[in-house]
């Protein structure tokens, strides 16, 4: 059980690192000088000057959002164009001759990286050129991460605005600061750490060499270290290769595994630290951090405990007991069962979805906490957007708490009224509605097609597990996670197109909802703090918040979970 301490240690280390990083973030977004200014300041100014942007022009939330969406349109066109024309790239940019993608695959992949989901219905080593990996996928990983941070910061700033006439801010300033001042320096450090750890960084094509027994073979590699850095830091998650962090070139040693852990949790944690400083409410940041950490632990612990109990079917073969249990299908020996499962749980909570083991092969009961963590998407959650999801829960919890004690619902001194509650509930429900409707459509299609195993060929593991695979894919799409069950063949028009709605809804509905709420609260007069006001910075409120999240999660998802993982657990297949 010393194994489980590894994950806890790494989480604690990340929390410790989140303090200075969070403080740096607060200085960047408050416009205060930082020690990296001499290098990054001129670069930031170049990004304004070249396209002729005015970063000081404040905007309301509608133009703020529209400007960001215009950028997204440009990025989507770029991504889909390159993917459709990938086979025409010169050999220097495509040494392993990756083919062009079909239109449905290109659209799915483009939307997937645009929304920071990074679901991959292709395998990097055969389906993507080096140029595509860097200039499309890596580029979009930076862009989507920058967007996540920008909208998160905009909402925080609106919540803390003291001037009722204030506007939301300037999208270009927030976005470019996120990319140039935050993501760029951190990515450089993390990429070098990966390279030192043995992650390749080469533009030479796949290596052709004979193995020790003399049999010829090909070993795919590439400019992986740079890719890994932004993949983790930006809560993106798309792997360079199909197996993602299980692949030895993405994750060769426990040292690189540790770097993966820290990189994926760092900015989501630092965001909470940052908001405490920007709002000048350290108690609120502590409460949120505590709730997020508690939620992560409460769901990750049963997952790890259940997985290390082992597979009863394999136990019937009468083989040797191993520390960590026999659930080694789909896992790697340099990590072991417990660290792999703990890392997967963290990647469900921060919906990056970079997994070090095959999601398909976990014990069915373990899929329940995994799916719940993804769907809640607020126990740290992605950088920036995790806080937006948590804000929705906080608004609902503050509303309920106020009604329970018979006071006017208020948040941070501002009255919560009907428009804010409507927005909060719409956001809370929109994602699950899309997931459940899409899953129902997929299940109906499968059930009504004669001979689906041959005509459709979607599912490698039929029965209840097959339904789990489909449900997981859709929850993953909405949550911006991107991991999936490998047994679900995603690269067909149905599964390329179906998750697109889920990805778009899961990405933009929380953003619009949170912006609506924050912009709606902004012009209201601040109510003076009275004796009976709900204190957000209290253990009582934190406990209530966790309970509200649990109830919402249970109401929205347990019926679907009974058809999938729970049915498989209780004896189905």
């Amino acid at each position, binding site marked *: 059980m010393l194994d489980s301490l590894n994950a806890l240690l790494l989480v604690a280390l990340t929390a410790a690192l989140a303090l200075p990083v969070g403080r740096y973030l607060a200085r960047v977004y408050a416009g205060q000088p930082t020690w990296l200014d001499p290098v990054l300041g001129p670069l930031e100014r170049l990004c304004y000057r070249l396209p002729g942007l005015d970063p000081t022009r404040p905007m309301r939330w509608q133009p703020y959002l529209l400007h960001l969406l215009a950028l997204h349109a440009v990025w989507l066109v770029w991504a889909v164009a390159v993917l459709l024309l990938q086979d025409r790239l010169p050999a220097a940019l495509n040494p392993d001759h990756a083919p062009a993608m079909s239109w449905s695959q290109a659209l799915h992949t483009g939307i997937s990286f645009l929304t920071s989901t990074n679901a991959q219905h292709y395998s990097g080593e055969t389906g993507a050129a080096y140029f595509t990996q860097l200039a499309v996928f890596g580029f979009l990983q930076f862009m989507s991460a920058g967007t996540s941070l920008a909208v998160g910061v905009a909402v925080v700033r609106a919540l803390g605005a003291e001037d009722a006439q204030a506007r939301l801010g300037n999208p270009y300033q927030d976005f470019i600061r996120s990319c140039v001042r935050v993501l760029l320096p951190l990515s450089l450090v993390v990429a070098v750490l990966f390279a030192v750890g043995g992650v390749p960084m080469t533009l030479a094509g796949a290596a052709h060499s004979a193995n020790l027994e003399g049999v010829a073979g090909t070993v*795919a590699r590439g400019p992986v270290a740079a890719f890994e850095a932004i993949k983790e830091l930006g809560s993106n998650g798309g792997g360079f290769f199909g197996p993602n962090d299980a692949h030895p070139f993405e994750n060769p040693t426990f040292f690189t595994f540790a770097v993966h852990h820290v990189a994926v949790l760092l900015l989501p944690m630092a965001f909470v630290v940052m908001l405490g400083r920007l709002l000048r409410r350290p108690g609120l940041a502590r409460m949120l951090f505590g709730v997020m950490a508690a939620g992560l632990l409460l769901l990750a612990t049963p997952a790890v405990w259940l997985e290390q109990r082992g597979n009863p079917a394999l136990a019937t073969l009468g083989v040797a007991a191993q520390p960590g249990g026999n659930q080694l299908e*789909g896992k790697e020996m340099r990590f072991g069962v417990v660290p792999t499962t703990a890392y997967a749980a963290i990647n469900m909570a921060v919906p990056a979805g970079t997994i070090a083991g095959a999601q398909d092969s*976990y014990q069915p009961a373990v899929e329940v906490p995994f799916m719940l963590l993804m769907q809640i998407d607020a126990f740290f959650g992605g950088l920036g957007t995790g806080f937006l999801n948590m804000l929705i829960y906080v608004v609902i919890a503050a509303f309920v708490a106020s009604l329970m004690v018979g006071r006017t619902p208020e948040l941070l001194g501002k009255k919560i009224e009907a428009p804010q509650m409507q927005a909060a509930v719409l956001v809370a429900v929109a994602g699950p509605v899309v997931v459940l409707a899409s899953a129902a459509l997929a299940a109906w299609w499968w059930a009504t097609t004669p001979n689906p195993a041959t005509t459709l060929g979607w599912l490698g593991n039929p029965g209840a597990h097959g339904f789990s695979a489909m449900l997981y894919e859709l929850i993953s799409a909405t949550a911006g996670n991107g991991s999936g069950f490998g047994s679900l063949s995603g690269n067909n028009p149905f599964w390329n197109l179906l998750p697109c709605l889920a990805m778009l809804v899961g990405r933009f509905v929380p953003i619009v909802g949170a912006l609506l709420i924050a912009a709606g609260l902004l012009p209201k007069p601040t109510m003076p703090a009275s004796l009976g006001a709900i204190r957000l910075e209290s253990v009582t409120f934190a406990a209530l918040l966790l309970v509200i999240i649990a109830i919402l999660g249970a109401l929205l998802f347990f019926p679907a979970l009974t058809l999938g993982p729970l049915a498989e657990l209780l004896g189905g297949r």
Partner: protein
Amino acid sequence: MLRIVRPVLLSGLLLLLFGIGFPAVVWAVAQLLPGGRAAGSPVSVHGRVVGFRYIGQRFRRPGYFHGRPSAVGYNAAGTGASNLSATSPALLAAARAHLDTLLRQNPGLRPADVPAELLTASGSGLDPDLSPQAALVQVPRVARARRLPPSQVEALVRRQTTSPWLGFMGPAHVNVLTLNIALDSLAARP
């Protein structure tokens, strides 16, 4: 039309910076690292590249230690897992088949000695490692094939076992490729 120019210009600049500039800087730094890390840490024997340190290989000869099962046959250009669910009958059947093969190739081996990793496929299909336990169960077969005393082979396995990072982070494991290379040089000594 004008409204699209600024987003396009900004995107182009950011593409140069993050899609090309950033990887270029990382590439430049990586080329300076020792051990051929940037190229994937290739491993050479007598001047010939025989593989990569972190990429598992398929070993079939009785005189070599065999790695874990692989759903892609250790094809390093088409990696992957089996993606079989834990309750799948196919998983149990595959594990049973692997167990039968093991018992046939290693006479004297009992099922109760076999660790589960030798019956299950890895996540990447390229797992380069084994637990020390899984390497030790193969010692009798390897020692017999190489005509070496088993105690010597066992000592080699223990020498080749990588201890956990920092002494306690992660499991101890044995890299099968480096183990087999060391075995070759051990057997070559007169």
